[in-house]
């Protein structure tokens, strides 16, 4: 076998060892939330945010703004590597905006906002 053929076969065989991976987000984005984005729910006792990538809990912020302004939320809990949870006080009916900012484990910051509504019990 010539060196050219050996070179080519080596390249092909090594390339075949690897398969195409599924694409990933590379930064921590909101995967889903509870209450769900845009949903109308009875007053929730907590807000849960699940991200697409692991995050650093010491560098995360969550704010909830209601019809009467900022809501006093509980401390940010970190029940999973990509999850945040905050306790909520009883919320009166109305529209609420959740603003979040997180830093992923590779130190890249991301942020966003979404709304949900609380209906009359």
């Amino acid at each position, binding site marked *: 076998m010539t060196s050219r053929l050996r070179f080519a076969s080596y390249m092909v065989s090594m390339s075949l060892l690897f398969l195409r991976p*599924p*694409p990933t987000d590379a930064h921590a984005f909101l995967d889903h939330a509870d209450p769900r984005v845009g949903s109308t729910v009875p007053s929730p006792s907590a807000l849960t945010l699940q991200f697409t990538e692991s995050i650093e809990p010491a560098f995360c912020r969550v704010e909830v703004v209601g019809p009467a302004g900022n809501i006093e939320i509980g401390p940010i809990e970190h029940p999973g590597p990509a999850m945040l949870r905050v306790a909520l006080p009883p919320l009166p009916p109305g529209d609420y905006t959740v603003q979040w900012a997180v830093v992923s484990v*590779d130190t890249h910051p991301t942020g966003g906002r979404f709304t949900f509504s609380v209906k009359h019990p």
Partner: protein
Amino acid sequence: MTAALAVFGCFDLLASVVLAGGFLSAALVTAPSPVGRRVSRVATLVLGVVLIVEFALIVVRMSAFGTSKGVGLLSDVLATRWGELWVIRVLGLALLVVALRAPHPRSQIWSGIAAVWLMARSLQGHAGAHGAMSAVMDWIHVVAVAAWFGSLTQYASLSDDLSARTAVRVRRVATTAVALVVPTGVYAAFLHVPNIEQLFRSAYGKTLLAKIGFATVLVGLGAANHFRHVPALIGGEEDAARTLHRAVALELVVGAVILLLSALLGVLPMPHDMATTG
């Protein structure tokens, strides 16, 4: 902030690859020349400064998101995964500095330590955030690049020893490196770019295309060395050593451009970012 991280990320990658590559070259090719040792020492110095600056930049970036200040902020950053890996990288660098000062370091052992040390860098970045498989792929990619680039750097510093035997060893390292760099690079491209359209429309995709273009040029230059210049040196052709030296220098320049683009990819927003927040 992003521009500063990109610039220092470039120096970080270049210095890490030259330093670890020097140890890999010592084990796989030949002992470094005095000039080669000096290049490695400069790489440790550059990396020492860059690691401190990068830590400071990350502290500034994180300060906008945390509640702690001063010493508490430093402590919080060091407690992050990035911070813990930063400490490992600093300790690893200190260890490699000791090895460089040793009169007769055991090249096989230190090349292994240098290769493992590169894993901390892979875990710190995008690849590490995606899980173990992605981090291992990135690590293989970076180790292969380090072996290739390091061997070329050390070879270029061998002003008096352009022996055919050394050239053949560098050729073997380069060929193996290409066989590892290409599939792991393709893996990373599929991981970070979700569709072909984003490859052409996003800044990340365009930078990746530029990197692929330069990488193709580099593989072409490597092929010229593999099939033409090294056989000419083995055959004792006139001026073969000088021609090979020039080709290696050109490879190093193209390789440095590729490392710059790679560092840029580490800080550019992913195509997904633009779709979500744009």
